[in-house]
């Protein structure tokens, strides 16, 4: 046992291990194929007001599946058994609102969402350490998201940031682009123009950095450099990032000399205010309620976070002149009307039929199934760690367990293969991923015999009978109950086992669940 594990042990003992009741929950004893589809707490009347309540419809996913989607999409892990018990105790008609309330109050929500947004804003690299602290920026974003700051304000603060990158975290959005090998001091206007256009406006205007668009597209080289020009005054000084009067100079293709490039925007020039510093003007233009691209890009990104797939195929490329899906514009409008309230947007998306559709089945009256997508590596790592615990990991637990989590995830994520900024692209499973889950350290250590730390062992010993043990393991790992076939299969495996043999049988049960398609994919 490592020193960290001893410390964790102490921590858990001192916190009081009061989770036995989670395993002793006989009231929920049933199988997935015996009418759990809509998790009917039928004693509670259904009302028309709750968006999750629909007449029985086999094209919709079960409540527990929806719960799993929301937890994975918004906190990065599957729900704990503790949360599942709470969820099932709620009347059906309150489950969506209660779930979102639970999630919005959970610090993992801010952390997880902040990392997703940070990938779009500054990428995944740690960058020039002397002037850039990615962690500071992510923590700051996390706080803003947790306290539900309007998204347009968050973005304006990034674009207009000034001061020292350590005490003003949002400055890191700008200093992330500083290239220590570059003679130019201060942030790189060209990289910033690319970031702003892609991350906030869903426009890939950076393709015309070196020449006009060769494919008859609307953008000209000039559009890009005029956008870059807004950042020319952002310079480094002894007091951090300051705003100067420095002009932006560039030599266009086929022009003999460099010229001063004016700061103008590539579309909707009428929305650009006249007053303010160049970055203040740009920030107001980008986030202007009539600049629909801004809201659409936000909708596409939040949709991507919740579905693991954007609404429009490329998360940072939304057409300006062509029509977009009606749903996207409805969501964009409601987002603007609600002052860029992220929680409102999430609530609205969670209420859509698209989010509630099942991912299985054939006939769906022409509508698309919920997309089956591969979980991102930190979702898999987080879910393995969560499944090893009956209580919720990371909400109130001590900073130490958070550190352990980060350590374990780091190594795992590297092996599982992080897609970086391209994390919403559709992908199949890979051989290294299967090797990591089948033989890797994280799964082994989180499932081996350990009556203190590992849920597999604890469930095996605490459950009153084999069926309860199996059902509890299924809920803890797959957020559902076993089918009759599954129950019968594992009953045979657990039957008559004691001590080490039982711990091993439970580990093998966990191994099978953790190595399944169902565990590794969002469905």
């Amino acid at each position, binding site marked *: 046992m490592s020193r960290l594990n001893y410390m964790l042990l102490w921590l858990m003992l001192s916190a009081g291990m009061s989770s036995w009741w989670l395993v002793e929950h006989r009231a929920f004893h049933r199988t997935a194929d015996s009418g759990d589809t809509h998790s009917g707490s039928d004693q509670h009347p259904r009302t028309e007001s709750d968006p999750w309540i629909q007449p029985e419809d086999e094209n919709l996913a079960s409540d527990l599946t929806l719960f799993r989607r929301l937890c994975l999409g918004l906190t990065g892990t599957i729900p704990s058994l503790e949360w599942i018990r709470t969820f099932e105790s709620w009347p059906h008609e309150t489950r969506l609102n209660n779930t979102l309330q639970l999630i919005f109050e959970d610090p993992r929500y801010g952390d997880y969402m902040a990392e997703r947004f940070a990938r779009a804003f500054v990428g995944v690299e740690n960058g020039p350490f002397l002037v850039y602290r990615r962690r500071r920026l992510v923590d700051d974003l996390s706080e803003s998201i947790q306290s539900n700051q309007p998204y347009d304000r968050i973005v304006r603060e990034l674009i207009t940031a000034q001061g020292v990158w350590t005490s003003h975290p949002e400055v890191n959005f700008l200093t992330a682009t500083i290239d220590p090998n570059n003679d130019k001091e201060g942030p790189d206007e060209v990289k910033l123009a690319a970031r702003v256009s892609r991350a906030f406006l869903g426009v890939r205007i950076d393709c015309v950095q*070196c020449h006009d668009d060769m494919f008859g597209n609307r953008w000209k080289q000039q559009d890009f450099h005029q956008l870059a020009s807004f950042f020319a005054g952002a310079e480094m000084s002894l007091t951090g990032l300051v705003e100067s009067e420095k002009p932006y100079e560039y030599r266009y293709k086929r022009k003999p000399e460099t010229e001063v490039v004016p700061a103008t925007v590539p579309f909707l020039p009428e929305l650009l205010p006249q007053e303010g510093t160049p970055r203040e003007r740009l920030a107001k233009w980008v986030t202007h309620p009539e600049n629909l691209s801004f809201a659409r890009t936000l909708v596409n990104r939040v949709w991507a976070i919740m579905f693991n797939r954007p609404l429009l195929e490329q998360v940072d490329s939304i057409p300006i002149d062509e029509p977009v899906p009606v749903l996207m514009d409805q969501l964009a409008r409601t987002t603007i009307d609600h002052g860029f309230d992220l929680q409102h947007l999430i609530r609205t998306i969670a209420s859509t039929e698209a989010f509630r559709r099942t991912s299985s089945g054939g006939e769906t009256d022409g509508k698309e199934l919920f997309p089956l997508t591969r979980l991102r590596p930190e979702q898999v790592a987080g879910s393995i760690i969560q499944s090893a615990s009956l209580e919720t990991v990371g909400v109130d637990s001590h900073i130490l367990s958070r550190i352990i989590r980060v350590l374990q995830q780091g190594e795992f994520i590297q092996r599982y293969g992080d897609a970086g900024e391209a994390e919403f692209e559709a992908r*199949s499973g890979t051989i290294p991923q299967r090797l990591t889950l089948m033989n890797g350290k994280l799964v082994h250590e989180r499932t081996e015999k350990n009556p203190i730390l590992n849920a597999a062992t604890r469930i095996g010993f605490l459950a009153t009978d084999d069926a309860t043990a199996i059902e509890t393991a299924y809920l803890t790992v797959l957020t559902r109950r076993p089918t009759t076939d*599954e129950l019968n299969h594992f009953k045979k495996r657990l039957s008559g086992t004691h001590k080490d043999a039982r711990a091993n049988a439970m580990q*093998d049960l966990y191994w099978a669940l953790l190595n399944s398609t*169902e565990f590794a*994919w969002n469905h």
Partner: protein
Amino acid sequence: MKPLNLHQCAGCSTSRRGFLKASAAAGMTWLSPISQSLAFSAENDLNHSEGKAVILLWLAGGPSQLETFDPHPHSDLAPGVKVVNTSIPDYQLAGGLEPLADLMDQVSVIRSMISLEGDHERGVYHIKSGYRPDPTVVHPSLGAIICHELPKGAVEIPNHISILPNQWPARGGYLGARFDAFQMGDPADPIPDVTQRVDEERMQRRLESLDVVERAFLAGRDPELDLLQTRHRATINEALRMMRSDQVKAFDIQLAAQAERAAYGDTAFGRGCLAARRLIETGVRCVEVTLDGWDSHVNNRETQAKRIATLAPALSALIRDLKDRDLLRRTVVLCGGEFGRTPRINPLEGRDHWPHGFSFLVAGGGFAKGRVIGATDPAGDSKEPDHPVRVADLHATVQHLLGLDPEKEIITPIGRPLALSDGRVLT
């Protein structure tokens, strides 16, 4: 070092006519005598696929032709660049590539590659697949096409491997993720997690239980889900085959002699090249090894020099090693990036993207030896190199050397038939 002339050269003269016609029309007075005396040719005594393999050394970001294979020492395009004489008469490499100098008669250099894409992502797509990006279909990379078309044989480890991939590794495209390259990092570390943690009997029980769980999930879903989308069970099976195979030793470069490892250089890329050789020897069909960081918009010389210091020992050791083991004649080696760099240096002492005449080194597998194809304008102005080689033509030629017919069509998932390559085989 004198070349062993293993193969007869065939068809040396076939493409001269068109080339001379083009150069006369263009009034290209700057053509070097070398480029005029050399037409591209393939040696075809091994014109079948048996045992043939491809190694792509991918110089990501776009290497500068002027600092590598096309130095133009008498012009003002690359001031200060030194040159090195090579075993090809009158052909010089840029300084830094000295280890390759006496191997050049084993390889050929195309100095006149032309691409239609000047953006990294699109450029990588174009060169790796031979096609331009197309919103309706994702084209497979060269390695994926080859693995799709040729039998896998007795290989129990992945047949298509990408070592040190960056964000755009070789992929299966419309052929499916089954043909994506298996990605791995620095071979200094063994492939992780290839040893199962329980005995075989218990492993079997675990796998039986997994089947039960999988059946429950697949109930009511598309029966081809695993085949077409998740590849979950498929990759488990491939992983199991790999875990149980002795061939995983090919990944472990610690099993190579110390002197051998030293020759490739103490770098991740050098180790990648050594692993590539070991994998090919084991029967793997296609390996790409990436050396990133050539995108020298700023401080071009320094940036290029650093990468060249890594490339030179690795590439020369690989060529020498393949030749010494008699693997070169069945292994195509390609070395290049998504484009070259502008002949003129920019105000930041950098060079920008230049798809209009850049270099690719080609060797082995039936490629001609000791040839220098095409030439770029020593004044740095022309966007039309002499004897231009289109990206698709290089693809068609490699496919041809591997015994494939580039004109063969595959029906893509959208129902549109696509040729393996729409290029022309260079003869």
